[in-house]
């Protein structure tokens, strides 16, 4: 868009709401405009494309709608969070399960409109879902988590009725429709850009969103900024209170902090724990630190390597970790402690909950002696360079205490690009730090990814027959089923006793806001601007 055309269009919309009017000072981006700074870069406007990075997921949230969404709840500290227990209508106005549980039928809002004004029909939903399960890579894996695996499952009943035939009844299906991936794309627009090489219009949608969401993308300068403008005709929820949201990419932490303190930005997204701690309590600044659901930062001994095959050695390490120091030094006390649980048997199925270990070097030494490693051993302790902000202090503290029980650990730093391959794909790191968090907030979902043999986040190469069976049995079972809680408790008990993953703490997502309200935490840990108010 040429500058002049842009300004011409802008005057029609009313000068008060515009950020690009030159007379407006940089700091006064108020009156319906919110400026957000984040450290990472958005690399695509299409979450289904291979190579799309995490920060780009926010486009799927703000620019596209899904059939359903999660509710909102207020946290104990007064901040807002999405509510996992409530599924709300978005594009669908209602839905019902077939009596035999073999299908879900969604009634779409007849008044539902895409941003170009065309109606949202069941055809669009089907095309979008077909795309998500067919393009491969992350979207396909995520759909599969909800037992959404092949196009034949998705059926257009009539213009506004859409049916999903279920492969199996699963409690994960409906929540999986509310994650960013199954977004609804304007199929009429997308189909015009299909080529024989590109049957899913990935090249077009990569740069040009075609959604029905609360915001439109009016400008995207890759590596610099993304500008959202309110979709005044949003049909899937209340039209946002802010006119425009400007997301600026500011790689330097120090610069982000200066901008935030000076008031030139209203939201500083994902601020480091250290800054969050120092800025909390400053007048006019609100720092929301929300524990990341279903996520634990862990120290993982790898069972493919000799000393760690012995449960006692793993337990010895779990007793040697200086938990409190790590929590204060690496996390600056933001997050939830995951040590010092009162009993070796869980009393409920909350997850994550504190593991029954704490720092007790005598116990650790005794266990090592029992295992026949009285004189200790040597082991590399691997960390990822791109996560060194918390991994490095953690590794140093772990190393120090391991030395006290005779284990000589050498810290090995691995570049970010190799980290994934080394730790998760090849699973070849003897002792390392790991950060898995599950989008779908169920303990069985966490176990599925992190404790089953061969699964991606089981970087410890752990295998336990009972956990294999129990996870399979609980994964699709409703939470209120009488068998669910006992089975989950048993799984947690085994995971605690055998400790293939030593829990350190539950991390927190820190977001700073000023001169605005309405920030809401989401499990995807990306910006959701729909509730912003100034």
């Amino acid at each position: 868009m040429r500058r002049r055309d842009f300004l011409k269009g802008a005057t029609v919309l009313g000068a008060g709401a515009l950020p690009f009017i030159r007379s407006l000072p940089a700091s006064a981006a108020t009156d319906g405009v919110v400026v957000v700074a984040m450290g990472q870069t958005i690399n695509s406007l299409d979450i289904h494309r291979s190579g799309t990075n995490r920060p780009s997921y926010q486009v799927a949230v703000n620019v596209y709608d899904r059939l359903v969404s999660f509710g909102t709840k207020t946290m104990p500290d007064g901040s807002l969070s999405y509510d996992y227990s409530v599924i709300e209508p978005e594009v669908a106005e209602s839905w019902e399960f077939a009596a035999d549980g073999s299908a879900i039928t969604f009634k779409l809002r007849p008044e539902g409109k895409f941003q170009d004004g065309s109606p949202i029909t069941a055809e669009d939903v089907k095309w979008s879902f077909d795309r998500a399960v067919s393009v491969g890579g992350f979207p396909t894996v995520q759909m599969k988590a909800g037992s959404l695996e092949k196009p034949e499952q998705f059926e257009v009943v009539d213009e506004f009725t859409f049916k999903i035939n279920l492969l199996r009844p699963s409690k994960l299906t409906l929540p999986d429709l509310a994650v960013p991936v199954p977004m609804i794309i304007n199929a009429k627009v997308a189909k015009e850009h299909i080529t024989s090489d590109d049957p899913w219009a990935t090249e077009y949608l990569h740069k040009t969103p075609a959604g029905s969401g609360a915001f439109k993308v009016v400008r995207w300068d890759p590596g610099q900024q993304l500008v959202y403008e309110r979709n005044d005709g949003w049909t899937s929820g209340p039209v946002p209170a802010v006119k425009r949201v400007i997301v600026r990419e500011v790689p330097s932490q120090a610069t982000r902090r200066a901008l935030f303190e000076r008031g030139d930005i209203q939201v500083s997204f994902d601020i480091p724990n250290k800054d969050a701690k120092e800025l909390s309590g400053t007048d006019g600044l609100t720092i929301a630190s929300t524990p990341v659901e279903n996520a634990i930062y862990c120290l993982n001994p790898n069972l493919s390597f000799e000393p760690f095959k012995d449960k006692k050695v793993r337990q010895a390490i779990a007793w040697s970790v200086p938990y409190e120091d790590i929590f204060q030094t690496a996390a600056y006390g933001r997050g939830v402690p995951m040590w010092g649980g009162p009993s070796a048997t869980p009393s409920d199925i909350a997850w994550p909950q504190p593991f029954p270990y704490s720092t007790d070097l005598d116990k650790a030494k005794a266990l090592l002696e029992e295992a026949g490693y009285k004189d200790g051993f040597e082991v590399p302790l691997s960390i990822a360079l791109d996560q060194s902000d918390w991994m490095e202090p953690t590794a140093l503290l772990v190393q120090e205490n391991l030395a006290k029980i005779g284990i000589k650990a050498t810290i090995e730093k691995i570049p970010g690009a190799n980290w994934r391959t080394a730790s998760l794909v090849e699973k070849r790191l003897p002792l390392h730090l790991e950060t898995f968090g599950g989008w779908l907030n169920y303990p069985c979902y966490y176990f599925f990814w992190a404790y089953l043999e061969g699964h991606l986040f089981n970087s410890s190469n752990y295998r336990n027959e009972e956990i294999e069976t129990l996870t399979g049995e609980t994964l699709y079972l409703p939470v209120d089923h009488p068998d669910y809680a006992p089975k989950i408790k048993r799984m947690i008990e085994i995971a605690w006793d055998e400790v293939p993953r030593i829990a350190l703490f539950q991390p927190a997502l820190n977001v700073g806001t000023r001169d605005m309200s309405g920030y809401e935490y989401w499990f995807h840990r990306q910006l959701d601007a729909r509730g912003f108010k100034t």
Partner: protein
Amino acid sequence: MGPRTKLVLYRTLQALPALVGVVIVSFILTRMLPGDPAAYFAGPAATETSIAEIRAAMGLDHPLPVQFLHYVQDLVGGDLGNSLSTGQPVVEELTRRLPASLELTLTALLLSCAIALPMGVAAAVHQGSWIDHVCRGLVTAGVSLPTFFTGIVLVYVFYYLLGWAPSPLGRLDFIYLSPPEVTGFYIIDALLIGDVETAMGAVRQLILPASTLALFTLAPLARMARAAMLQALSSDYIRTARAAGLGEGQVVFGYAFQNAMLPVITTLGMVFSFMLGANVLVEKVFSWPGIGSYAVEALVVSDYAAVQGFVLAMAILFVLLNLVIDILYTLVDPRTREG
């Protein structure tokens, strides 16, 4: 064809084997990087099959010679491929980011030349005087302060404390729209459409990062200017000129300065090329969308196309730069003049 034109043509031809070498070496080197880009780009929840799908989509399932063939084919067609990490064609990205880096680097270089050259010359002419000491102090500060540190200090003082500088948010504050692209240099492009205000906005954004870089490049330039000037002033032809009764101005600027410029131009060329790739830290502090941070981020995630494109662009730039310096030489150096 004059000997000078011949020289220029010869130098250009000499650059071709170098470019071919760069294409081959950058291809092999990026493939030798550890790490599996397919696994990286498949995302956090990828399975074996989805990684394999990505690998095929990236063309990484072919043997290396075939991959190289595809790369050269695309290259001949002017296609440097798509960067996976930024999701953009590499050519597009480079044409957007290179002007940003060039604008910053050239401004910094002009700034540091404007200070370093007069200071170096003055220090040499008045050796041991106060100006010599000031020069020495500034040079020492310049080399010993790392750029990211200077950058953060400047942001802290002039933006955070005093509020004089605009927010360190890249090339333009968000109240301005970038001018229609002609040269890619925001100041020039804005002036071309007569938009003085946007040009001033771009200048304001430039001041701090350019000063940071200038302080860093000041040191080698001032030192080289001083040393070359001292050497020139103590040479025979200056003694002869002075003995012949020429005026001091004519001696210093007419003879000594012109001869002292040769090593300074060489240093300038080196400093310039070094700065283009090495100002990553300044780019990070000032959110500058330059080519250095692009290359580093691409390297970290083994983004082959982007790394190769960057290396190639830099190689071409170096060749051009060397050419320009050679031409400057022929202009400055009396020995290469046509008889």
